[in-house]
């Protein structure tokens, strides 16, 4: 038994959960979704063990390279989903979120991602690594849930307008409100982890709290998009389609900050 075995078990459990969700999507049997949720919860616990194992094995936080941080992002996504599901009962979002989580897990397990735990470069040896990365990724996980519910909103809204909405489908209004709730959790987390903790750490490690490094700039852009979401919604009363579109753009910006910047733009954040 080691970390990579636990990781594979988690991966398989998530895939099984996704099958239950797919079964639910086609058969409309509530019980399939319930089983799916239990399976995800089990997978989440195994995943937690895998992360703890990794931490003990490597002696540092489990998000210092792409493989580790993808695994942690998938874990955060599962956590965010479990919280939202137990709170708001949006079974329909399950299958789509599971697909995203499985996609992240697949990416993490691809041979392109070096898996060996390498010793940390001096700049990463700090407890700010824990605070900065974990809180940011947790915030982004909630953005991911908002992304899914926003897409579901667009579909539900179109159907309702055309009159083709199915019986028992979640109302577009509820989806709109769940998206907002997710952003209400994700935005403060992202601000705290990504921007505030990021600035504090940069000040201690690089001697400058802000350097317009591409990753910093892109997290500011992401922050601006969600600020836009909140202002248009709360002050100008935008709701529905336009709000959903901004939430979708916001998540894509977060995704680019997390992933695209590393591969497409060079900068100080050259680790992960």
């Amino acid at each position, binding site marked *: 038994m080691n970390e990579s075995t636990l990781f594979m078990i988690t991966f398989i459990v998530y895939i099984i959960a996704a099958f239950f969700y797919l079964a639910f999507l086609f058969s409309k049997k509530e019980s399939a979704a319930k089983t799916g949720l239990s399976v995800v919860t089990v997978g989440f616990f195994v995943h937690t063990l895998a992360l703890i194992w990794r931490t003990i094995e490597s002696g540092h936080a489990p998000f210092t390279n792409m493989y580790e941080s993808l695994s942690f992002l998938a874990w955060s996504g599962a956590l965010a989903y479990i919280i939202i599901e137990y709170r708001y009962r949006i079974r329909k979002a399950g299958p789509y979120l599971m697909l995203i989580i499985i996609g992240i897990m697949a990416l993490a397990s691809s041979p392109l991602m070096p898996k060996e735990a*390498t*010793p940390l*470069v*001096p*700049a990463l*040896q*700090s407890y*700010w690594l824990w605070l900065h990365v974990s809180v940011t990724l947790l915030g982004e996980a909630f953005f991911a849930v908002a992304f899914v519910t926003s897409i579901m909103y667009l579909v539900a809204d179109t159907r309702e307008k055309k009159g083709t909405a199915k019986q028992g489908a979640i109302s577009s209004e509820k989806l709109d409100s769940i998206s907002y709730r997710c952003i*209400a*959790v994700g*935005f*403060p987390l992202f*601000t*705290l982890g990504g*921007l*505030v903790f990021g*600035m*504090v750490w940069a*000040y*201690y*490690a*690089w*001697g*400058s*709290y*802000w350097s*317009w490094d*591409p990753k910093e*700039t*892109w997290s*500011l*852009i992401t922050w*601006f*998009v969600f*600020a*836009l979401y909140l*202002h*248009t919604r709360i*002050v*100008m009363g935008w709701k529905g389609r336009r709000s959903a579109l901004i939430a979708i753009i916001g998540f894509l910006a977060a995704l680019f900050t997390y992933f695209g*910047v590393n591969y497409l*733009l060079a900068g100080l954040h050259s680790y992960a």
Partner: protein
Amino acid sequence: MKSIIDFFSSVKLAIFLIIIIASASIIGTLIPQMRSPQEYAARYGQISELLIRLEITDLYHSWWFIALLFFFSLNILICTLTRLSPKLRRALKPNLKFEDKTLLAAKIKERFIKSGNLETNRAELNKVLRSGHYRIKQMKKDSEIHLLARKRILGIFGSDFVHLGLLVILIGGIISGFSGFRANINISEGEIVPVLGADFQLQLDKFETEYHPNGSVKDWKSTLTVIEDESPRLTKTIEVNHPLTYKGFVFYQSGYGWDWDNSTLDILATKTSDPSSSMRAFLRLGEKETWEEENLEFRILQFVPDFIIDGNQVRTRSLEPNNPAVAIEVYKDEKKISEGWIFAKFPDFSQMHSEEEPEYKFEFKDFQTSQYSGIQMAKDPGAYYIWVGCALLMIGLFLAFYWPTRDIRFILKESEGKTEIVSAGRSAKSKLALEAEFTRILASLRRS
């Protein structure tokens, strides 16, 4: 004046500015910043001059980007101020002169008649509300009592705290830009360097590099002593992520290096025909040594820490001593007999070019080079503002999202020994929770 204020108090302007600033920031991540004009010319050709003239090549410090940030700050300030006074009035001097029909127009409302006179019911209502942690304001007018019960009133100021935090952060940024400074210095063990703009000096007592078992760098540690008025004041060992702070100056461990140009090279010359006859020399770059008995002279031409041949040129691949090599030239009886490279790690693989069978063998035994510590000195008086701003920002976000103000308004009217109660609840951000609480409060009032 009024029209200027109106212009800057608009949320639409804020949205417009956010979009423009975000778009400009994107451009700044796509076009490499602060490179040489030659690089831009090679990359963008004709338009490179335009990019430089528009300061897109140093976008985040360009006059127009700073102007955008300035307008954005003004926008935030005026937006916040114009919305602040009604909120303050609501918090400090709430209007108790509401009417039945306003209450009944609300979404969360109830109306019922209860036994008991006005005062009994008022006392009951006060008790119920207090146990629900509500703060109460009430007023009696004729036979009516108007009562306002509120909780978490600070929540309505969430966005103001966020905006204030942002302004403080922007002010901090301006202060950093104008009075912050940053400099990198390389300092060797034992060396004392002056600190720019400060009345003290810095001495490096000790510098060491720690390695992981696989050979990669684990950490650099510099023991620094602050010297003021010719006496040591403070000694601290700094490492990456753990700087030294003294009188507003911060000293960061930023790297290390080798002082290659001042290396002492240990060269051994041996006679090929008689290995017991040899001579050892410790030389610096450019220095020469004479072996009197043999009338032999050799000189160090070049030294590289990490030898590589690039095309037909020798250069160093890195600044690490991975493959140290020395180029020497040898004279016998004042006549050049050979020239070439010798390697510290490959003693048998020398590249000496000589016309005849070599009479002498040269070995590069060792080298002594001191490591220097790379220290970044910074003074950034703006940083304090940043931390205060961040704290305000986070307090504001917490208040805005998780401290929802709730208020419930009541009108109590006495008629024929009974009391009519009309009430309505208001909460911008937690309607569902308020609705549940509203129902609970009114239920316990009915029971009383």
